[in-house]
């Protein structure tokens, strides 16, 4: 029997110890009418060899197209050592470190992670992870409402250049708690927040202003001015950032005169494969004064009975298993293994390695934009300072172009025409350090060929 070790004599001895005539008798408290007759829709079992063949066939159906798509999930090189260690059984098959003495490995790793993440974002404390970047923003909005006691409005101001899915997710998750989201437009032709729309809110009660840096179009926002404006107007600031970009760009803890209040984002660029969108992990860092309002697990360093250093879950009274209906969030198990990957990844690359990856990605995207915009009928939507994504505009419908590119085994970007119709036939493209110059040329010539038709 797959995965079940019992022999016939085991079963007999065990039933004798229980005093039951059969395994079936152990279910005698379940009303007979409810018992399953059959599971006809479940196929017969496959052996490991057969399932391997099936999965390989499915994988080959999808193949490995050349990819120029980012939009919140980025294809970076992951050192071989990262997943070799992550999939060790001691990490892979352990559970949440409730028994601290038997979980010091995971706990120490999480403490190291908290240290790295706090430093990368320029903040004082980090939790041990949330589900993903989008849900982390939802949690940050709820946290801001709790932490900012002077604001009574539960009103969150977001720029329209925030990843649109992040806004949808934040709305869905906070739906029962009476938050309101107010979307401010970007400046036409520039692609960054239209500052006078923010100015127009002066004097109103705003709980928090959300800033995404780089924004969804890949452009850098004037984060110092927005942060200072928000603080001057009594609002908190929630930063949504790509952690890789922070090796290069000013961390949110240093934005404006005081730095932001809460930082969130998706940790995927730190050692997590694209993997169809998950599992990734969300991160959250903040100032010490807000630590008790932070959701998710937090690890602290302490001492044992002999005074020796050790690590343990702390501030648990915020969490659902103690606070129940008054918890900061219902979150419990989330993305521990991905944090393990990120911690190893950050250790292997260090600051200079991450910076080098960030710069190379930025340069490859700049080259890509240059090559693509030389094609007739392709132009750049915004020419501001960028990280590693850009919006290009075509003379044909992006959906059709993307399908034609897919036939040539190229994933050419994200069609923005539904979410940003005012941009016309716009495409969000991305190149990372994993796209070579030859890859960029391949895309450019494929796009030229497709557009010529």
């Amino acid at each position, binding site marked *: 029997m797959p995965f079940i070790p019992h022999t016939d004599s085991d079963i007999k001895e065990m039933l004798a110890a229980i005093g039951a005539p059969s395994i079936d008798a152990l279910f005698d408290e379940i009303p007979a009418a409810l018992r399953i007759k059959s599971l006809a829709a479940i196929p017969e079992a496959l052996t490991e060899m057969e399932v391997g063949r099936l999965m390989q066939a499915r994988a080959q159906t*999808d193949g490995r197209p050349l990819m120029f798509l980012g939009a919140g999930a980025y294809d970076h090189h992951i050192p071989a050592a990262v997943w070799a260690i992550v999939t060790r059984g001691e990490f892979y098959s352990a559970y949440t470190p409730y028994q601290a003495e038997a979980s010091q490995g*995971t706990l120490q790793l999480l403490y190291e992670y908290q240290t790295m993440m706090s430093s990368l974002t320029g903040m004082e404390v980090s939790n041990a992870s949330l589900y993903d970047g989008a849900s982390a923003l939802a949690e940050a909005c709820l946290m801001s409402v709790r932490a900012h006691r002077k604001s009574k409005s539960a009103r969150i101001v977001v720029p329209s250049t925030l990843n649109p899915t992040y806004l949808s*997710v934040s709305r869905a998750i906070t739906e029962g*708690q009476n938050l309101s989201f107010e979307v401010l437009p970007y400046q036409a032709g520039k692609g960054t927040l239209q500052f006078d729309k923010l100015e127009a809110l002066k004097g109103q009660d705003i709980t928090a202003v959300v800033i995404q840096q780089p924004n969804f179009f890949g452009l850098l926002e004037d984060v110092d001015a927005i942060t200072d404006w928000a603080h001057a107007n009594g609002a908190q600031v929630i930063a949504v950032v790509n952690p890789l970009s922070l090796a290069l760009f000013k961390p949110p803890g240093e934005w404006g005169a005081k730095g932001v209040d809460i930082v969130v984002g998706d940790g995927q660029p730190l050692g997590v494969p694209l993997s169809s969108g*998950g599992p*990734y992990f969300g991160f959250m860092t903040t100032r010490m004064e807000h630590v008790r309002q932070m959701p998710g697990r937090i690890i602290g360093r302490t001492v044992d009975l002999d005074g020796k250093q050790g690590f343990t879950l702390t501030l648990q009274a915020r969490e659902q298993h103690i606070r129940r209906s008054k918890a900061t969030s219902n979150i419990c198990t989330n993305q521990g293994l991905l944090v393990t990957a990120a911690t190893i990844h950050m*250790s292997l690359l260090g600051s200079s390695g991450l910076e080098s990856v960030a710069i190379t990605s930025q340069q490859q995207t700049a080259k890509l934009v240059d090559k693509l915009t030389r094609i007739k009928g392709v132009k750049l939507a915004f020419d501001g300072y960028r990280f590693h994504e850009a919006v290009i505009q075509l003379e044909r419908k992006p959906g059709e172009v993307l399908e034609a590119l897919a036939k040539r085994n190229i994933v050419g970007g994200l069609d923005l025409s539904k979410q940003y119709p005012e941009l016309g036939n716009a495409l969000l493209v991305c190149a990372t350090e994993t796209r070579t110059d030859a890859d960029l040329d391949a895309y450019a010539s494929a796009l030229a060929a497709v557009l010529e038709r």
Partner: protein
Amino acid sequence: MKTPEPLIFKHSRSGRSAAGQYPQGASANVPEKFRRRKPAALPEVSELQAVRHFTRLSQRNFSIDTHFYPLGSCTMKYNPRACNQYAMLPEFLGRHPLAPNSVSQGFLACMYELQEMLKEVTGMKGVSLTPMAGAQGEFAGVAMIRAYHRARNDLERTEIIVPDAAHGTNPATATMCGCVVKEIPTKDDGDIDVEALKQVVGPNTAGIMLTNPSTCGVFERRIKEVAKIVHDAGGLLYYDGANLNAILGKVRPGDMGFDVIHMNLHKTFSTPHGGGGPGAGAVGVSSRLLPFMPIPVVGKEGDKYRWLTEKDLPQSIGRLSAFMGNAGVLLRAYIYMRMLGREGMHRVGEYATLNANYLMARLAKAGFDPAYPTRRASHEFIITAKKQKNDLGVSAMDIAKRLLDYGFHAPTTYFPLLVPECLLIEPTETESKEALDGFIDAMVSILKEAETQADLVKSAPHTMTVRRLDDVRAARQLDLTWKPAAA
């Protein structure tokens, strides 16, 4: 295992790096206002130093692969290696979540078939795979219940009924969804108090959240009656799938009358727990909740698969993740279900239950007190150490810690809260009789120690990297990040 491993930062030396890992010679021209001034304090170590450090840390963990892990309510069963290997095929790892459907048919086929299989084993009419953990599945479930009442203009239904033995996530979720929690008591035999339920249901009832078998480790025998009471009052029934392993292949939540369920794929369908995730909390719904499922869902038209989104499900409660949840976890669950097959599904519930009842019977004979001695165990059961606490001064926590010295992970302690000195024990179906016997021997031995040298048990563990930790100090003098000055 006793030697300490220093923090990674202690291995760090300025100028050292694992330089083979990234492109060399890149330099950027970043405008001053955007430029990072001081590099982040990440460690500077060689590849070998990093590999050795994290390998050594891994060795300071208990895990299923190394130890029996009878953590109640967590279903720590074997995670087949094949599930990991085939979910990590390069094509799956490299697939972008927003890639066009035309280059995603292989992946979408797996997801569609997983939805269909989960529908069959739970008896529900629709499945959405997007919730990223049990708690998010719970959120989706309660949000759907709210959306259902709202769509019927039944706006006063804001009360969620929760038994006092429920997981903490149940009341926390209800609050997150803007509902008010009404607790009902559990009776001495472990069943919920149906009379109390009758008192509390009414025109404000949105629904009830139940775990069945309950966290007390027993099957709710009057479930059909409970379903009728709640439905007659206009409420819906939510099934917390934390204990689905107990009944897999034996009875289905849909047949019991539940309207919505979440499944912890990392429990019942054996995806890894990963030291605290990633999980996956797929939700299943009855026909009345189909329009409200979280998106995206995979649909099939002819022989083509595609994502169903806002357009297809305009009444959906929306999106809970940036893409489609923990896809890699879902692939692992899919592979596991294909390897179990139809017959294997039935066996899961059977052998999980056999193992639990065997452990309970043997431990009872050895002098431990089951909390519900008149009941069958489900896939788990509770031992109460109240007697040991009163007579010998040895608590459930002491026994749990001493078990670590014997090479067994501790059961879940002090949950559910209503049983004093509670040890919630779940062996799972993948453990052999020898493993269970070894655990029983350890428990018997600890009981003897408690009688003759209680201090040994009360000061356990003695063989781990650290002894008991000062939790009070951890909470009062918060030390949450390493700082060079404090080193």
